[in-house]
């Protein structure tokens, strides 16, 4: 499959938040300010790419040869949580600046369904290693796009006169619904 098609499909057509409903927790939780939203998106992109590469290698080199693919869920979640811990420790030593920027978001990422979801999807779609990397990076970009649009809208929403019962989560979900409607316009692009 063409790399460009994979990338465009993952960023716009089947956007991870608006079309596949993955990563809603961080999407709702850390989107009240644009700067934190971008920090979260950066951390997700970084871990997502790394986790997809590692889980892909484990799947093809360990799970398939030993015929234990039914252990996929258990192995993947263990690998991802260990990986997040490792990234945290390495970043702290190697690049304190980046650790400062991403630090608080890293522990949250273990239970982010984007990471596990994309790792499983890459195997389901029978991608090669390079295709999986493109797939992961573009899903990360799609998440970054979704959360930064949403955060910018929410910053404005704080100043609006929203009916009392709709304040907080309900109005945020309505905004997300309208954004999802906009993203439906990309359907059929690839």
């Amino acid at each position, binding site marked *: 499959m063409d790399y460009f098609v994979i990338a465009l499909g993952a960023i716009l057509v089947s956007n991870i938040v608006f079309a596949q*409903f993955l990563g809603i927790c961080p999407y709702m939780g850390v989107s009240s300010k644009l700067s934190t939203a971008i920090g979260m998106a950066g951390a997700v992109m970084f871990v997502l790419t790394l986790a997809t590469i590692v889980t892909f290698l484990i799947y093809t080199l360990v799970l398939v040869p030993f015929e234990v693919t039914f252990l996929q869920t258990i192995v993947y979640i263990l690998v991802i949580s260990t990986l997040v811990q490792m990234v945290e420790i390495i970043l702290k030593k190697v690049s304190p600046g980046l650790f400062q920027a991403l630090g608080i978001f890293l522990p949250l990422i273990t239970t982010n369904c984007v990471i596990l979801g994309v790792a499983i*999807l890459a195997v389901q779609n029978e991608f090669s290693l390079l295709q999986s990397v493109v797939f992961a990076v573009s899903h990360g970009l799609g998440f970054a796009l979704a959360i930064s649009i949403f955060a910018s809208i929410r910053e404005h929403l704080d100043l609006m006169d929203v009916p009392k019962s709709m304040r907080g989560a*309900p109005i945020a*979900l309505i905004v997300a619904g309208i954004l*999802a*409607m906009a993203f439906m316009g990309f359907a059929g692009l690839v």
Partner: protein
Amino acid sequence: MNQLQNFTKGLIKENPVYILLLGLCPALGVTTSAINGLGMGLATTFVLLGSNIVVSLIKDLIPAKVRIPSFIVIIASFVTIVQLTMEAYMPDLFAALGLFIPLIVVNCLVLGRAEAFASKNTTLSSIVDALGMGLGFALALVLLGGLREILGSYSLFGHKFIPGDGMLVFVLAPGAFIGMAYLIVLFNFLKKKTS
């Protein structure tokens, strides 16, 4: 707190989806119809029940430092049981729920109950808590799935009651977000009424 209160708190007052805003991904992702919502709700209830029982039984054996990884392995084992059983006996439902079955592992509701409740309480209370929270989650998914099915295809649990196609937007992604927004408003109202 007696066991009855422990059981009913998950239904409205601490409804996992509409009040605590936990497990939003599956709640939005699988609720294209009431039956899918019910299937996902019951699958999650089973995992929650299993993990709560095991965690409450071995809570004194797990060192505090490695408790989260241990909880995750316990949860992942039960998810694998659900995944394989469903694939064998309910292939249609399994295909409809798709990716969201393995993703029960990262449902914050399950890990949250293990950490906040089962690791501190007796096995009996943990069972009651798991059933209450699990049924509250199932109720939430059936409500959203039912709402989307009624508006989106004029049917409920597959029974059509008005001829015609319905409002397609409610079956598609935007309908999930908008439907959930109004159900949150409804549950906040109910919570205020009952307390």
